[in-house]
């Protein structure tokens, strides 16, 4: 018996060692992790950057803003992506804003509601208003779509409504923007909050969703740029300490106006350096 146990244990230890030592980042390339809202923009920028700088390899992985922040803190990635501002307790890292996005409320195209106020939104997400009839819509229960803990859209939404995550009474919880959009597209009675960029491009692509106005203000990139749309957030690149080499060059590239056309193509608002 012992003859078999020993090699198994040895192999197990070996594998354990192997898994805990493996680094995500190779010496030649650059790994960026984090927000699924920022990732498509950074991935496009990376593609262009790689074309202009042969030899550079940039790997973009998603997993939510908190992953981006955690990975940079732990040194697993040189650059992180976060679709929210840093909190006061996150002063050990820096954020560079590369674009501005808004968070909007979306409904199914068949829903007659066109506008909601902050009070109505807050009441819907606490189930104080639970039927569209009470808001002038058809008699149907509202299907409240929330976001999983740790998602930046959730934190931005909680900031706006002043709710604690324990107050939110959701019927369905989605992970990424896409899942929330598909939930609303498949459900005439659903409501969800998602990135304006993601929602607008899905609506353009023909998904049966609409971006409603909030207190009369349209969720457009113009209104986000003007600063009048009420729920906005910075799309940030997170770094810790001084970054050098490829990370530095790519960070400067992301902050430059050379990616402004990409920012606009993703329906975000560019920031002037």
């Amino acid at each position, binding site marked *: 018996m012992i003859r078999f146990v020993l090699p198994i244990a040895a*192999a197990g230890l070996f594998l*354990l060692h192997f898994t805990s030592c493996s680094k995500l980042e190779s010496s030649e390339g650059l790994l960026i992790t984090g927000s699924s809202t920022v990732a498509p923009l950074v991935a496009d920028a990376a593609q262009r950057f790689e074309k202009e700088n042969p030899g550079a390899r940039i790997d973009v992985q998603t997993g939510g803003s908190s992953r981006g922040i955690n990975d940079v803190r732990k040194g697993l990635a040189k650059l992180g992506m976060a679709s929210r501002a840093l909190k006061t307790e996150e002063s050990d890292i820096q954020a560079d804003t590369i674009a501005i996005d808004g968070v909007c409320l979306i409904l199914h195209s068949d829903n007659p509601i066109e506008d909601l106020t902050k009070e109505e939104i807050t009441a819907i997400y606490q189930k104080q208003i639970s039927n569209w009839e009470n808001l002038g819509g058809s008699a149907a229960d509202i299907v409240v779509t929330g976001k999983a803990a740790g998602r930046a859209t959730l934190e931005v939404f909680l900031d706006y409504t002043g709710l604690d995550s*324990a107050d939110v009474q959701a019927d369905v919880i989605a992970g990424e923007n896409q899942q929330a959009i598909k939930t609303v597209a498949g459900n005439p009675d659903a409501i969800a909050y998602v990135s304006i960029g993601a929602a607008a491009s899905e609506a353009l692509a023909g998904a049966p969703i609409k971006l409603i106005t909030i207190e009369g203000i349209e969720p457009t990139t113009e209104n986000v740029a003007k600063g009048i749309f009420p729920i906005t957030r910075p799309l940030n690149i997170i770094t810790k300490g001084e970054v050098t080499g490829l990370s530095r060059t790519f960070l400067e590239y992301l902050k430059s106006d050379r990616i402004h056309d990409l920012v606009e193509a993703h329906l975000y608002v560019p920031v002037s350096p």
Partner: protein
Amino acid sequence: MSPSLRDRILRLSLGATAILSGSVILAVIVFLFREALPALTSGKLSHFFTDLRWQPGSERDPQFGLTPMLLASLLVTVLATIIAIPIGVGGAIFQQFYAPASLGKFHDRLLELLAGVPSVIFGFWGLTVLVPVINRWQPPGQSLLAAGLVLALMILPTVGLTARSAIRSLEPGLLQGAAALGMGRPATILRIIIPAARQGIGAGCLLAIARALGETLAVVMVCGNIAQIPHSLFDPVRPITSTIALEMGYASSDHRALLYAAGLILVILTGTLVASQAFRKSRLTPGQAG
């Protein structure tokens, strides 16, 4: 090279592959255990069973109740199994005894194709096709039922293909004996084939159950992800795997350790299942069990 040396080399290399496949799961368990250790030693684990809700992100009142999610994992698995086993085993019997050979082969290929469909595809199909249908019937659509149906589809090939190969590998003598006794086809199938192939079918079902317990990507899209004890098939649920997938990316400290502990519980659950099957087998056929 002498035959005995060749034999030793073969023995060593085969042994190495066996040790590798066996040790990977041990390494995974050790890793899970190590990551979950802070939760196990600090007594935080009791939150799993004393807290009523799962709200790790709440600043006012963080709670870590695992019971609804443990229940959800079990319920979606049971539901998927109840749907998939009769269809899978029935299909295998039909194919072996009633269907023309060409149709049977076609059925096989279809099942194999089903087995090869990536789980993200099942998830998107469930979210965009199945969920809206259930929603028209009983909102919100993302539900225990949706998760059970999608999982049933995913484990159907495992159940069907192992049942078929279990039936096919039965001794021809059994069938000939039944025919010689003048038994009709229904009696042969119910009294001879199913009992004789029970063990093979059971092993397939076990694999399917383990797969259903562990499936993540498809389930997270269709189950609704609300950590609650469901009162009907149409209530959204959140299995353990969904929670880990949704939250592991950003979780830190206690929350993270508790997620690993939840994963460990899932592994223990699957392990218990496998062990109970092995135990049952060894009692049923003491001569053959290894």
